[in-house]
């Protein structure tokens, strides 16, 4: 089977994008991706659109977007895997090339969330478990789910609120260097610790924002890639896993089983080990989620994730730079766009064009870890330059 290369990437500004419609936002990501690959819409044979939201005025938003991008008539699929929707779109576009069905495909992750009021969005996203058993009577919220993990992790391993705050401080530091990030200002540990409680022990600065945004990735077969670019980034493997909808059916809250399983699959397929990566984007929808990811991906021992960030080992210059594009925390988390945004950021890293937030690239290996829900879905994508 052919290898699959990333030959073009594009990224919109993330943030409050009520100035543009959904298709216009998609255009902001697809146009630079096409220009980067030096191709036209005509060359794209298949489009996967990652959109998680159910709140759009359009029932078929992927079709509206596809038309606007000039891709009507091409193969088209809407993909959904909660907050890992963008990665599901990448996996779909990748598979179309890998299986020889297409030479050039595009994965577009996109979401608009700012037009929905806060309590209603909390209502919708709070249903990201098992509605009948967790929301109907108990009003679970998305921060609430991750708070269940934080509480148990803090008790078992001594992880502190300060260590959680340090994840936020790190990601805001790098977000400030990323012109496409939702938040572009550094924060302090005190800012984070003094922010209001959302779902104890998680506070406002432990939570990523609701954002609008889009990011696009163009994939090509090895043969085609050779004609398009001198600096392909190869998709080495994509590990996919999932877990129960009901969190009460899980044996503990100390990690995400879906991450462990997805990583095992991805590492095995790419024949790599966790200590080989130069840079990683992990799913930091909440600060505790980044700490769980360090441990579940094998960047440190179980229970040592808090220490890893406290020691600065996940900053540039540390053992494994993580979320140096600002992460979901500062870059923003437009659900469907997050997975494709990770691939865009890591492609820039592997091409050594990430500017101020460039990590040293030694092995030419990067990892994207994208979780849907509270470990309901997980996609681990491994890239090589």
């Amino acid at each position, binding site marked *: 089977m052919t290898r699959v290369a990333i030959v073009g990437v594009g990224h919109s*500004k993330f*943030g*409050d*994008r*009520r*100035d543009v419609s959904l298709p216009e936002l998609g255009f902001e990501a697809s146009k630079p991706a096409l220009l980067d690959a030096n191709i036209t819409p005509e060359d794209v044979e298949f489009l996967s659109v990652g959109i998680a939201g159910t709140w759009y*005025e359009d029932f078929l938003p992927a079709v509206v977007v596809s038309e606007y991008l000039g891709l009507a008539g091409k193969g088209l699929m809407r993909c959904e895997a909660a907050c890992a929707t963008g990665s599901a779109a990448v996996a779909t576009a990748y598979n179309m090339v890998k299986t020889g069905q297409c030479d050039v495909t595009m994965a577009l992750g996109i979401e608009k969330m700012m*037009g929905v*009021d806060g*309590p*209603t969005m*909390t*209502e919708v996203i*709070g249903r990201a478990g*098992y*509605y*009948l*058993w*967790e*929301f*109907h*009577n*108990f*009003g*679970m*919220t998305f*921060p*609430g789910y991750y*708070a*269940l*993990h*934080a*509480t*148990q992790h803090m*008790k078992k391993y001594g992880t502190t609120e300060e260590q959680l705050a340090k994840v936020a401080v790190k990601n805001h530091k790098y977000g400030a260097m990323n012109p496409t990030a939702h938040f*572009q200002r550094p924060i302090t540990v005190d800012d984070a610790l003094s922010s*209001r*409680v*959302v*779902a*104890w*022990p*998680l506070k406002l600065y432990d939570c990523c924002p609701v954002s609008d945004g889009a990011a696009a990735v163009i994939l090509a077969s090895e043969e085609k890639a050779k004609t398009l670019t001198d600096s392909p980034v190869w998709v080495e493997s994509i590990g996919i896993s999932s877990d129960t909808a*009901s*969190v*009460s*059916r*899980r044996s*503990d*809250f100390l990690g995400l089983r879906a991450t462990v399983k997805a990583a095992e699959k991805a590492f095995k397929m790419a024949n790599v080990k966790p200590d080989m990566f130069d840079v990683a984007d992990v799913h930091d929808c909440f600060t505790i989620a980044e700490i769980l990811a360090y441990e579940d991906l094998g960047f440190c021992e179980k229970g040592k994730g808090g220490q890893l960030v406290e020691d600065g080992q996940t900053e540039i210059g540390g053992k494994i730079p993580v979320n140096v594009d600002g992460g979901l925390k500062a870059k923003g988390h437009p659900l469907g766009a997050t997975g494709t945004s990770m691939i865009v950021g890591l492609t820039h890293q592997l091409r050594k064009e990430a500017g101020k937030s460039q990590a040293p690239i030694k092995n030419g290996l990067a990892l994207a870890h994208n979780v849907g829900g509270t470990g309901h879905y997980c996609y681990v994508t491994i890239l090589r330059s």
Partner: protein
Amino acid sequence: MTLKPPKRTLKSRPITFASEIATQKLSEFWSGLEKGEVYASKCRKCGSICFPPVADCSRCLGSEQEWIKLDGKGEIETYTHIAIRPASFKEHEAYTVAVAKMKEGVRVLAWIADANPTEVKIGTKVKLVAKNPESGLTYAFTICN
């Protein structure tokens, strides 16, 4: 934020709906709550005890269940105090959600009724009780002293 609020938007026509959730196959569970009891399902074929209860067993694919009354004794494994609430819970004060492991081995997610946050800890013993308020059948933990 560098972006300004939008100068021009328009609102779509509104849609409202509420899903109808089928609970018929788990009638015994809901009737149990009416009687003040909380049941788990137990597969007649493989013996799997499930909470939330199920009509079909995902382990052995059996579709015959018996109902076992949970003793109610459990221990908190984790919890959170939810301050920022969804739109449909805006009338509630902040509430505490816990996951407890029950004597029978299953875990239950529910509110801790009248929780005093200082009393709620991992390892705290709780009792699971059925509730039948005007707002609808439910169940909750109470702290055992």
